């Protein structure tokens, strides 16, 4: 061994129950030195932090929060594989750092009992001692040290207290020799484990670690039997079954024997350690809970919290997107002033600035939602929300944990989909992800607004209380919800069928949310969106720009338009020279100049419109016309629908170009509304737009998956291309069908009336 080289960093695996302050500790130890990635094939996030202590480098692996190391899915297998050093992509941890909640030692030590059996040096971080004393608990930590025989360090993760002692303990533990752990199981069980190991050895198979043999016997769900672990063959599995039967006869039924044995061990370890007050103290958390889960008050508070969350998102969305629009405008002017007209300028303005804007425009809402979700999580209300809504959500086959993700999706599906991480059951989580984009997000609102104001009459009923326009908007939101309910119901009965997962859920004590952890979570998730989804949205926007720009064939444009343009430019130049001549009052010709400029811009818009018609996008629009004709759409609407693939709201700017108004159109634009009303089918006098057509477009946009960002986030969260493709296919099919029915029924009603 060379003396000069620095020693290999100590690898520490961090594990603990949810709600114990594990992320807070991870952040406190590693600060900004964190790396995230994915383990291949699963949806578990791989988080590694770095820290130093007395010239020693540490690498800290954050494992997902869990109550038990009992893998029942590939995701849950990750933690076991990391701890046992069975993963090729990282070395076995030198030390396991287990964080426990001092106010809830009994349940927390269940996991500790499993961790200790792995036989790695282990350090216990005892967090939330203050909460324990608030509950009136007295802890004899010296006695716990004696009875547990593991280094225990008292910490306060949120105040960064005890971290130096903790690092010291980790460094010492890494140097300590490993020891064979004792087993909490009864002798009969241990004997079965030994004989299975002997059988593997006899067969010449690789011998599984003791912990995995135990799990193989205990996993009655069958995941490990099918996981094709090395060393497990048919005869071993037959022996496992026989062992279970023998154990049941001996009075140690599997799987109950594990919980009974471990909690018995926990009872022995905690004997004389925790003293509860004779009269159970009613804590502030208990009082808050009484109100927040109350039949009437609890429901009222819940509705209020949801309204505040929702309003806050819309409140920041407005000025923030105005700011981004303004920035885009300024940048566009800058580019137009410094880059000559042509492909490069168009790429910069419509591709790059548009693409970056398309990413940025979501950010304020996403960050606000992440902020709220982080606050709700950290103060303990998130699980209460799931508790309150569970009954309702179970009617569609989901659980209360799907409620907040789906509600958030009304603002934006991206944070909604990212918030599904709280749902442990993979089928429930996937169902929630797949229906989340059906919730009418804020990007659909401009599309609805434009079409409703332009085409739906301002009729009111019930003395003006109920307006037809409002009803239409409400109907669009309802279509999304009803479809989501049907799709979720269908998915849970077909592709994602399976046993109802447990809803057995801890309701953690309430606490004041920690500013640091809340901000950290918000930034971490927001940044993850920018990094993973942002690049993809940007790329798609550039592709769509190219499709709308090329081949840019001048022959496709009416030559008369170019002549007119050249003529107007000449006139304008003449006028400007004339006006610059000394002795002239510039105001005299200001009107003429304005008129010339206006006509020039109109001609320019007409030329752009003709270029677009000839572009690949325009040709695609013509190509799909027979397909979209039954929806009441002409090629221009088809074209705008295709162009809006990166993001729905793009349809408005595209309609602006296509109807030769230029691209500076928004949903408030009067000219765009008028132009849409006046648009005629080519070669006829028949208007393109009527109420059924407007409704058909709205229904299409209510149900379609025209949002590159959402698809990118689904790809990231499911770690596979299969699900974004599925989402796009099923939503587009539903959108087409919905638009078709809307138009055909609408035409039937309007022509017969």
């Amino acid at each position, binding site marked *: 061994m060379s003396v000069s080289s620095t020693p290999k960093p100590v690898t520490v695996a961090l594990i603990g129950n949810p709600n114990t302050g594990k992320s807070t500790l991870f952040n406190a130890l590693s600060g900004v030195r964190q790396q995230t990635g994915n383990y291949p094939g699963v949806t578990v996030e791989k988080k590694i932090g770095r820290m130093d202590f007395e010239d020693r480098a540490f690498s800290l692996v954050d494992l997902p929060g869990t109550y038990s190391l009992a893998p029942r899915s590939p995701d849950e297998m990750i933690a076991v594989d990391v701890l046992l050093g069975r993963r090729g992509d990282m070395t076995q941890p030198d030390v396991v750092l287990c964080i426990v909640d001092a106010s809830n030692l009994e349940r927390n030590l269940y996991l500790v009992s499993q961790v200790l059996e792995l036989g790695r040096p282990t350090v216990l971080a005892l967090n939330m001692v203050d909460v324990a004393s608030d509950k009136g608990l007295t802890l004899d930590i010296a006695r716990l040290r004696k009875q547990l025989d593991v280094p225990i360090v008292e910490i306060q993760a949120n105040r960064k207290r005890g971290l130096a002692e903790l690092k010291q303990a980790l460094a010492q533990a890494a140097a300590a020799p490993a020891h064979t752990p004792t087993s909490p199981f009864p002798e009969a069980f241990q004997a079965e484990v030994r004989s299975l190991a002997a059988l593997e050895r006899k067969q010449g198979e690789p011998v599984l670690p003791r912990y995995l043999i135990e799990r193989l016997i205990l996993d009655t769900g069958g995941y490990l039997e099918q996981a094709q672990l090395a060393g497990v063959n048919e005869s071993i599995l037959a022996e496992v079954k026989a062992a279970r039967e023998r154990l049941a006869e001996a009075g140690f039924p599997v799987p109950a024997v*594990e919980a009974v044995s471990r*909690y018995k061990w926990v009872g022995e370890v905690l004997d004389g350690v925790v003293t509860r007050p004779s009269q159970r103290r009613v804590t502030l958390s208990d009082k808050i809970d009484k109100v927040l*889960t109350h039949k009437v008050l609890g429901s009222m508070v819940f509705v209020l919290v949801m309204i505040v969350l929702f309003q806050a998102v819309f409140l920041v969305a407005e000025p923030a997107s105005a700011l981004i629009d303004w920035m885009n405008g300024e940048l566009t002017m800058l580019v137009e002033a410094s880059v000559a007209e042509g492909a490069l300028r168009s790429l910069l303005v419509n591709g790059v600035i548009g693409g970056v804007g398309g990413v940025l425009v979501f950010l304020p809402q996403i960050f606000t939602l992440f902020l709220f979700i982080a606050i709700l999580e950290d103060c303990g209300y998130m699980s209460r929300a799931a508790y309150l809504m569970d009954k309702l959500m179970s009617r569609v086959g989901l659980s*209360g944990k799907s409620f907040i993700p789906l509600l958030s999706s009304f603002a934006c599906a991206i944070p909604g989909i990212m918030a599904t991480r709280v749902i442990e059951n993979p089928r429930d989580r996937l169902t929630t992800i797949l229906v989340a984009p059906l919730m009418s997000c804020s990007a659909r609102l401009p599309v609805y607004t434009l079409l409703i104001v332009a085409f739906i009459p301002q009729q009111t009923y019930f003395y003006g209380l109920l307006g037809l326009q409002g009803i239409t908007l409400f109907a669009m939101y309802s279509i999304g919800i009803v479809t989501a309910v049907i799709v979720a119901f269908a998915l849970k009965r077909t592709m994602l069928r399976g046993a109802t997962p*447990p*809803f057995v859920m*801890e309701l953690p004590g309430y606490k004041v949310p920690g500013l640091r952890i809340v901000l950290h979570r918000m930034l971490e998730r927001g940044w993850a969106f920018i990094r993973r989804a942002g690049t993809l949205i940007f790329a798609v926007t550039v592709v769509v720009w190219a499709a709308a720009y090329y081949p840019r064939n001048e022959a496709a444009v009416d030559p008369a338009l170019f002549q007119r343009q050249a003529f107007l430019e000449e006139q304008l130049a003449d006028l400007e020279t004339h006006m610059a001549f000394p002795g002239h009052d510039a105001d005299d010709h200001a009107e003429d100049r304005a008129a010339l400029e206006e006509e020039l811009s109109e001609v320019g818009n007409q030329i752009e419109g003709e270029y677009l018609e000839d572009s690949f996008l325009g040709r695609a629009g013509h190509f799909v016309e027979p397909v979209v004709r039954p929806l009441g759409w002409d090629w221009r609407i088809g074209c705008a629908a295709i162009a809006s693939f990166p993001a729905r709201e793009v349809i408005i700017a595209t309609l602006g170009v296509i109807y030769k108004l230029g691209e500076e159109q928004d949903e408030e634009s009067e000219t765009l509304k008028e132009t849409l009303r006046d648009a005629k089918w080519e070669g006829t006098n028949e208007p393109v737009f009527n109420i059924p057509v407007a409704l058909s477009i709205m229904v299409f946009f209510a149900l379609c998956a025209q949002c590159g960002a959402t698809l990118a986030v689904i790809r990231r969260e499911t770690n596979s291309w299969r699900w974004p493709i599925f989402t796009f296919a099923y939503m587009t099919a539903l959108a087409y069908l919905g638009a078709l029915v809307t138009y055909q029924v609408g035409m039937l009603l309007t022509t017969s009336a």
Partner: protein
Amino acid sequence: MTLMSEVAIGRRGRVTNVVGTDEISIRLLEMGLTPGVEFEMIGAAPLGDPLELEVRGYRLSVRRSEAARIEVAVD
């Protein structure tokens, strides 16, 4: 024999058995609902389901259908 799903709010008791060997039963056991453990029924959600209990010094939410797997003796 009484089931956890039948216990009135505010009552205390002991778990006597958890029926079943599937994921739900395993989860109930892991969360500390083992035979012999004391519990208190704290309340029910506004729509009547799920239930909130206190066990081993913390609060736990279980659906009525899950609570029906837990056999208890009420004090």
